[in-house]
């Protein structure tokens, strides 16, 4: 470390030098400890003949996985099986984060409602979910709810048709017919035109200072243009893929398995309770005077919420919200208990199948770490952006 010039005395009294030295000493200590641990692990593993290589990644996995986004069968490699697990974790985490945020925000607002009943319902929900372990909730959802649905033969048929049974939710899905391209084009055109109309008319409203009905016009474009495309494509651009009960299970359509369903519902209901508290505290952190000031300049209650309260509350909400997102992602490893084929579940099977416990646990840890770091990186960028806008 270069000597830092200081008028007041010797360099070892310089606070900046001391700080840097402390940093270096702690870094060296930490690195030494890590190196020691790793070397020890390697040596111990070698003494016991435990293989630490990653060569098994290219061997066939030979075990089944219950659900997969990519086409998987047991002849695929261990590496591919792991990827399937990662994607399943991402699937439940991403959908879970979105739904938990929506539910959590609604609950957080309900908690602040002046309506006694709404307020109390939210309170009971939050306290109930915050104080029951997630694993218990998952077992409850899976074994007491999803598994107790009727058998496929006696499925509950909802309009769509949507079939709800022990084997999951089968939804009628739609594929594009050959003539459907015209409709698809019209749909895209409609969206683009609607956005253009929104932006242009809104700017015009600001310039002219009178209403231009930008929302209504955009909506009309959004509906009308695709409708024209529908007619032009011959009236039926989509082919429906209706699930049909064949043998033991339904075939066709879009399927949500009970394991995924229980996992998603469990994670969302649990995390939403925490997010609700984050939202509530964030909103309460906004000074009352702000609301009163907004009201006095004549803003409506919705405008106060969206223009005054939320932008300021977001600054308080975002950091703890990031932790909740990370918690949700990591908690998805509890899937192993209810048979959802997430990263941890697949990893455990891989360990048993290949006998490579240390490398696979390393892969599992690295993957969770990577997911968490990417999530917090993105949200921290967002956090910085809203901070700057406010200043």
């Amino acid at each position: 470390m270069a000597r830092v010039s200081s008028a007041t005395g010797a360099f070892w009294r310089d606070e900046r030098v001391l700080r840097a030295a402390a940093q270096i000493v702690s870094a060296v200590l930490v690195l030494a400890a890590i190196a020691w641990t790793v070397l020890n692990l390697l040596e111990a593993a070698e003494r016991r003949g435990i293989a630490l290589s990653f060569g098994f990644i290219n061997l066939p996995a030979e075990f089944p996985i219950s659900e997969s986004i990519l086409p998987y069968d047991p002849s695929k490699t261990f590496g591919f099986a792991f990827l399937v697990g990662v994607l399943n974790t991402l699937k439940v985490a991403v959908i879970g984060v979105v739904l938990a945020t929506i539910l959590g925000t609604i609950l957080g607002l309900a908690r602040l409602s002046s309506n006694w009943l709404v307020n109390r319902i939210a309170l009971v929900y939050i306290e109930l979910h915050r104080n029951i372990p997630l694993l218990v909730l998952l077992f409850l959802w899976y074994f007491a709810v999803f598994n107790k649905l009727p058998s496929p033969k006696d499925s509950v048929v909802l309009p769509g048709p949507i079939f709800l049974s022990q084997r999951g939710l089968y939804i009628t899905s739609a594929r594009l017919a050959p003539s459907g391209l015209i409709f698809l084009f019209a749909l895209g055109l409609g969206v683009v035109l609607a956005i253009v109309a929104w932006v242009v008319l809104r700017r015009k409203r600001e310039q002219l200072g009178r209403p231009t009905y930008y929302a209504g016009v955009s909506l009309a474009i959004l509906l009308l243009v695709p409708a024209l495309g529908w007619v032009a494509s011959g009236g039926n651009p989509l082919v429906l893929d209706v699930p049909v009960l064949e043998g033991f299970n339904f075939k066709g359509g879009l399927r949500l398995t009970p394991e995924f369903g229980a996992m998603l519902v469990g994670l969302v209901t649990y995390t939403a309770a925490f997010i609700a508290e984050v939202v509530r505290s964030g909103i309460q952190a906004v000074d009352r005077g702000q609301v009163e000031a907004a009201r006095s300049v004549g803003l409506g209650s919705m405008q106060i919420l969206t223009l005054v309260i939320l932008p300021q509350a977001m600054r308080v909400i975002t950091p703890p919200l990031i932790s909740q997102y990370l918690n949700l992602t990591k908690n998805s490893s509890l899937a192993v208990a209810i048979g959802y084929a997430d990263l941890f579940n697949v990893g455990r099977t891989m360990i048993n199948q290949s006998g490579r416990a240390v490398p696979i646990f390393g892969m599992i840890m690295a993957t969770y770490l990577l997911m968490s770091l990417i999530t917090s990186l993105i949200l921290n960028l967002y956090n910085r952006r809203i901070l700057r806008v406010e200043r």
Partner: protein
Amino acid sequence: MTRKTTLMFAGLLALALTLGACAPTGETVEVTRIVEVEVAGETMVEQIPAPGYGEILARVQARGRLICAGRTDLLGFGYLDDDGRNIGMDIDLCRAIAGAIFGDGEAIEIVAISAAERGPILQTGEVDVLIRNVTWTSSREAQWGNFTTVTFYDGQGYMVRTDSGIESQEDMDGASVCVTGGTTTAQNLADDFRQRGFEYEAVIFEDTASVYGAYFDGRCDVTTSDKSQLAAIRAGADDPDAHIILEPTISKEPLTPAVPHGDDQWLDIVKLVMYGLVNAEELGVTQANVGDMMASDQIPVRRLLGEEGEWGYTDLGLSADALANAIKAVGNYGEIYDRYMGPNGIAFTLPRGLNELWSNGGLIYAPPVK
């Protein structure tokens, strides 16, 4: 904020360890604390010796009890009785080894583990013996430890509801199958369906209780496991007659106790005890008559019980009456089997089949005491 995050991102990725690295100045104390924890973990790892010849027996004797990896959730093999005592065939085999070493079948500690923990717990030498329905396979023998001798010949089968209309494997196309993960079972299932070109949905759970919970709830049309296990589960069902175990056996499952790699003496001891139990059945030595049999005029019986000559017991570090003590603790092989799975078995009834003595048409056979 972002710069710090990026720094953390890069730092943590490289080190694969959280915290510490980018702690702000002045938090040296905290960092030092982390270092101490690492050192503590270090010493603990060093304390588990890699087993060499004779080390496991010495370790067991010094400890005063035998540690077996077992289970508490499978009727017949390892489960809890009404008083909460861990009993079952696997547990009795563990008691037999403890009896041979200490003359006391109670000097055991059972570590209940899940299927997926079996390999790692043996590789790290945390237990002395793994007796938990382990199928002996080539890859497990190479990776996990040494397998001793088969104590139960099993095979995988399918169980379905009687009213499901499934009569053979041919009827299973498109079925949902509940299965335990991290076992050879899931792999056999995959092999069988893949070979037939059938579609299926494997619903995989970590915990055996969850597998059958889901099957009984109707989540799956079929469940599959070793036939002995299916018999146990069926016996415990609300209405056993509502379920049927299909005839075909789709795999070989030789259930075998295993010991850590590296200690040949320990491998020999466990084998000696297992063979001793089989020889005892062959010679008619039982838990009840073992005391009288020590005065028997039958030469093979006197040899087995250590009354005449020395046939390798003391070479392995055991006493001459080691096998007599093992039999005193739990009885012979046939007695153990019958206790849990015989015609009046306390768990369920399963014909011995392949697990009969070789002289009765089965596969149970032991080298002679000579």
